[in-house]
């Protein structure tokens, strides 16, 4: 039967080709929009926290209003920081192997001759404490961890593109201002982590001071004790820490990365595109409202104004 169809096709080649083109266009349109929707709905992934089993962040949901006037729940992004004391509390929960307080703050590094260190494909450099390195994990390939406030370990990609060696001196601009640092080591994240950001690691003592977030962490990365499954770990963390925090699994860990400002936004991309209202729709204050325009027309056409005018 198929053979007959193929044989007769030769006489109707144009309509046959036309049908294929029509189906191809239709399918590509459906698939393309479906891909966009799937990308928007997809979980943020692990991002920089590729080595964690769970991440604890502050609960980003805030109830607006109070009592009878409670108007709903707003989700703040990025979520507020956590007190550094929580790291020890997380570490004390059963099933937790290691709990690491993570900080991420903008750190712009300039090389020996004042040249900006950057990597193609990465749009930002984030500063962290050295303890955060194990959350990706970043592994030292040269030198040693940063000791003291004047030393940094830099991402191997930054070192390669900026031709920076161990022992070089860099100027790094952090929230506390521009500072000079000596490169004590170079660390690499082997095929792990978020390729769109690069990292500069400061000593764990210096990082909160440079970030101006002393006594606070952005999130707590948790690595499970041997033999504890990630699901069990998350259940124990949720039970042990209460409702002030949110426990994310590895598939959503990037949402807790303060150095990934887009990960959290991706979640409610479809629900509430934030800038449509401001840029595409005219603001109500700038244009006369429909009812005001109608009442003006009504009054202009029929003087004296009737009682129903403007209603």
């Amino acid at each position: 039967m198929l053979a007959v169809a193929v044989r007769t096709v030769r006489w109707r080649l144009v309509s046959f080709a036309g049908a294929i083109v029509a189906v191809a266009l239709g399918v590509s349109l459906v698939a393309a929009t479906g891909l966009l929707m799937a990308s928007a709905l997809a979980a943020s992934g692990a991002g920089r926290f590729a080595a964690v089993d769970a991440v604890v962040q502050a609960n980003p949901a805030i109830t607006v209003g109070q009592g009878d006037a409670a108007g709903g729940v707003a989700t703040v992004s990025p979520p507020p920081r956590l007190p550094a004391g929580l790291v020890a509390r997380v570490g004390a929960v059963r099933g937790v192997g290691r709990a690491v307080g993570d900080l991420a703050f903008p750190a712009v590094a300039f090389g020996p001759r004042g040249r900006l260190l950057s990597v193609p494909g990465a749009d930002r450099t984030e500063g962290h404490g050295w303890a955060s390195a194990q959350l990706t994990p970043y592994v030292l390939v040269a030198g040693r961890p940063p000791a003291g406030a004047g030393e940094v370990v830099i991402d191997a990609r930054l070192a390669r593109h900026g031709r920076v060696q161990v022992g070089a001196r860099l100027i790094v601009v952090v929230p506390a201002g521009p500072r000079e640092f000596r490169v004590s080591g170079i660390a690499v994240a082997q095929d792990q982590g978020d390729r769109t950001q690069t990292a500069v690691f400061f000593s764990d003592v210096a990082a909160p001071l440079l970030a101006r977030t002393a006594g606070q962490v952005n999130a707590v990365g948790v690595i499970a004790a041997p033999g504890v499954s990630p699901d069990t770990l998350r259940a124990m963390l949720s039970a042990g820490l209460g409702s002030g925090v949110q426990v994310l699994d590895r598939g959503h860990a990037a949402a807790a990365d303060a150095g990934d400002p887009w990960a959290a936004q991706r979640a409610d991309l479809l629900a509430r595109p934030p800038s449509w209202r401001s840029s595409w729709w005219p603001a109500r204050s700038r244009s006369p409202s429909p009812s005001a325009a109608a009442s003006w027309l009504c009054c202009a056409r029929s003087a004296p104004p009737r009682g129903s005018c403007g209603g």
Partner: protein
Amino acid sequence: MIAGEALVIAVIGGAVGCLASLPLAAPIAGGLVGHGAAPEGFHASGNPVPFAIAFAAGLFIAEVRQ
């Protein structure tokens, strides 16, 4: 016979359409980011589910249309 021909059309058209959709989705994602409708860094990533849905839709329409 017509059903067989529709099947050929749907399979070829569906395959071509699925292949064409990824390059098509990328500029749409870029446009969404450009207009501020999607956050910076949003991009279309490969996912088999939309391909399967679109392919099945193509098949269904081709078979019903004949």
